[in-house]
């Protein structure tokens, strides 16, 4: 971060020299920010609308819901003894009335196209509404609460895993690029293809060994059942349940990522200016920080931000294999129950996070890379 402030100082230092240029820069940045925000917003709108269409099967979910209502109401009328005394005609009118009320409650009385835009508006204003089938563990049908309830589980697992892994990979990659051609280097190169398998796949093996064969770690879940009453006990139990998922994610990622970073650093360390720095007799730590990490900072930052976004989505399959009560598994369950509001709600949060990150990245680039100008000639592309 200290390096980032340096470039801000640089920009500030140049400002008084050409005041005219500064106002030009400001208006350029403002214009760029404006168009970029509009474009990104349109992107979100289209993306979310597509999700709404897919999640409703182009209106087919409505028919399913109508069928469900009809069935539920006729069951209710068949079983309730108070309706037994009614005449057949009266019963039919009463039934159709109840069905109409139910359909109105879910908004099924309006055509789908109209409602899809209502959905879109609600989604964009983060008015996530109520779930059709699902309920949070506390019994609420608010989509917001359902998502918020699952979010911590996902964040704890993938936050820990992604952050630990990211820094571990960078450190390993740096040390590998330093001792290029060594035994450890060769080990990582050889093992890098193992990352072809996803995390859940290693999860199955780990569960087999440590839960099924050795009985030392749990098969899945987040805490023991029943959960320990003390906070420390709860945390310890959670830690125990996190060992296998964390190992699985690590196994599936660390070799390839460390290898990729190492190659990336090696390409940069064969640049002329690095040779020059070496010739000057600079300390290897200084070379690493000033001549290898500094120019690769934009890439590192990009990867880091996308890792942060990745934490919010969860992983349906991974969470299913480990029975981890996170967002991914919840989306999977929502799809199985045709619960459109939950699906759309998760998507819109993800879309907003992604777009905000993409938007901020431009400015972060300008901060960490003096060659990049916000809204400069490159900005035309965005």
């Amino acid at each position: 971060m200290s390096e980032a402030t340096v470039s801000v100082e640089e920009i500030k230092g140049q400002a008084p020299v050409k005041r005219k240029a500064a106002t030009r820069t400001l208006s350029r940045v403002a214009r760029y920010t404006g168009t970029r925000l509009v474009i990104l917003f349109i992107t979100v709108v289209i993306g979310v609308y597509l999700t709404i269409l897919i999640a409703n099967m182009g209106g087919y979910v409505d028919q399913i819901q109508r069928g469900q209502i009809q069935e539920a109401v006729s069951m209710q009328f068949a079983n309730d003894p108070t309706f037994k005394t009614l005449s057949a005609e009266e019963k039919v009118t009463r039934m159709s009335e109840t069905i109409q009320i139910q359909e109105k409650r879910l908004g099924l009385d309006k055509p789908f196209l109209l409602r899809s835009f209502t959905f879109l508006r609600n989604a964009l204003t983060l008015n996530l509404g109520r779930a059709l089938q699902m309920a949070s563990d506390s019994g609420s049908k608010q989509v917001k609460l359902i998502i918020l309830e699952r979010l911590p589980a996902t964040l704890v697992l993938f936050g820990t895993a992604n952050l630990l892994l990211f820094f571990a990979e960078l450190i390993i990659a740096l040390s590998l690029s330093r001792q290029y051609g060594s035994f450890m280097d060769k080990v990582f190169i050889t093992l890098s293809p193992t990352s072809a398998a996803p995390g859940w796949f290693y999860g199955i093996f780990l569960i087999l060994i440590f839960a099924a064969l050795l009985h030392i770690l749990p098969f899945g879940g987040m805490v023991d059942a029943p959960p320990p009453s003390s906070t420390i006990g709860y945390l310890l139990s959670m830690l125990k349940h996190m060992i296998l998922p964390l190992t699985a994610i690590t196994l599936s990622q660390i070799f390839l990522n460390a290898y990729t970073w190492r190659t990336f650093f090696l390409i940069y360390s064969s640049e002329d200016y690095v040779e020059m720095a070496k010739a000057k007799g600079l300390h290897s730590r200084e070379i690493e920080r000033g001549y290898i990490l500094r120019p690769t900072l934009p890439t590192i930052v990009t990867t880091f931000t996308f890792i942060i976004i990745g934490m919010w989505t969860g992983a349906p399959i991974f969470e299913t294999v480990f029975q981890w009560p996170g967002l991914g598994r919840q989306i999977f369950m929502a799809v199985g129950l045709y619960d459109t509001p939950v699906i759309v709600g998760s998507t819109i949060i993800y879309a907003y996070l992604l777009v905000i990150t993409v938007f901020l990245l431009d400015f972060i680039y300008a901060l960490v890379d003096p060659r990049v100008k916000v809204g400069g000639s490159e900005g035309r592309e965005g």
Partner: protein
Amino acid sequence: MKTLQNTFKELTRYPSAIFGLAIIAFLIILSIYAMVSIPYSEAIRLWRGGEGIWYKNPKYAAPEWINFIRPNKLPTTIYLSSQAGSAEKTITQDKQGNNAITITAKFDYPYNTVPPDMAIYFASKYTNKQPYASITWLTPDGREIRVADFAVAQSEVYWFSQDTKLQRRLAGLEPQQGLFMLDPSAGLSTPVKGTYQLNIKVITFEPDTDLDAEFILYGRVSGIAGTDHLRRDLKIALLWGTPIALAFGLLAALGTTVTTLVIAACSVWFGGWVDSLIQRITQVNMVLPFLPILIMVGTFYSHSIWVILGATIILSIFGAGILTNRAIFLQVKESAYIEAARAYGASSWRIIFQYLVPRIIPTLIPQLVVLIPGFVFLEASLAVLGLGDPTLPTWGKIINDAQRNGALYAGLYYWVLEPAALLMISGLAFAMLGFSLDRIFNPKLRGL
């Protein structure tokens, strides 16, 4: 052709590439063998067939080869049929012309563990009066145990494990255990080894009555791959999973990379609104969550592997690949030979397909190979979530079945390990080959 030869020659310098190629060759041979030995329709019929097809197989049986590593051999399935002649059948006629049928099934039992179950499948022919069967069991030490007596319907199955009367006679031990013990009242011990004999004496009440019986002693091991909860031979799904996985991975990778390449070339060549439209689509696609959309397509629309394949390709086309290719094409577009092509009046499509696209095909090959394992595992992942094609036997489906039936809790490790091993080696093979190709084709990586 020459470059292909050179590439191959260079590949042989990488041991991991040779290893990868060898495994891929093995997988291709396995696929061909699967398609030739079990035709597609036959594979589907067998995989979707129920008890009718698979009744001779035990449930949850491990593969036979684990007996090579086990000190204690597990029993294999013993199948004796009076129709096929493996069980002795004698018919004697009484004075009224009614048949008395005796069926004797003799078998050796040298194992230390009892079988999981035994069954007798009867098939009888009669007009009105059912034949009456009395079943007895002769142990190697000469004891005779009465098993059951009952009238046999036209097709009847007698399950030893479900006979509670017999269980009471065997001092409460389950019949498939008690019948093998020296002294059932003493509880479980090792089975008596030697030749057992099952006698079925049938009295008939009509002249033309006939009866045949199949005795099945279900083993704890079966076939080269073992069986699942529906008694199906896992060999079929393991064999047929190979061509399906390869085809899915290859088609998805090919479809994605080639389309991406062409679209990126168009984007660069036409520029203007085409370029910005393609960029917008890429951005929208980035907002769409990949896996949830695939799960939705699988749940709402169709489980068919082709629909999923199509959705996968469409969602993958407008990804990071387009941006990378676009950056390369932007450079290529400025080359002198493109200028020359434009000068002689080549059409846009000619330039795109004859000059732009072929130029970066070398970078495409490693890209393509590296993408394959991801798609192979994607298909397996969807199957693990229960979204696999319901008709097709695939590796992911086996893992899904195993997960649903608690294979890991029950210690049925073979059930998970076999498909997992196949998935792993195919993923590894393509990744190893792809990484080596990447080093050959990507001059920046040369020597690193």
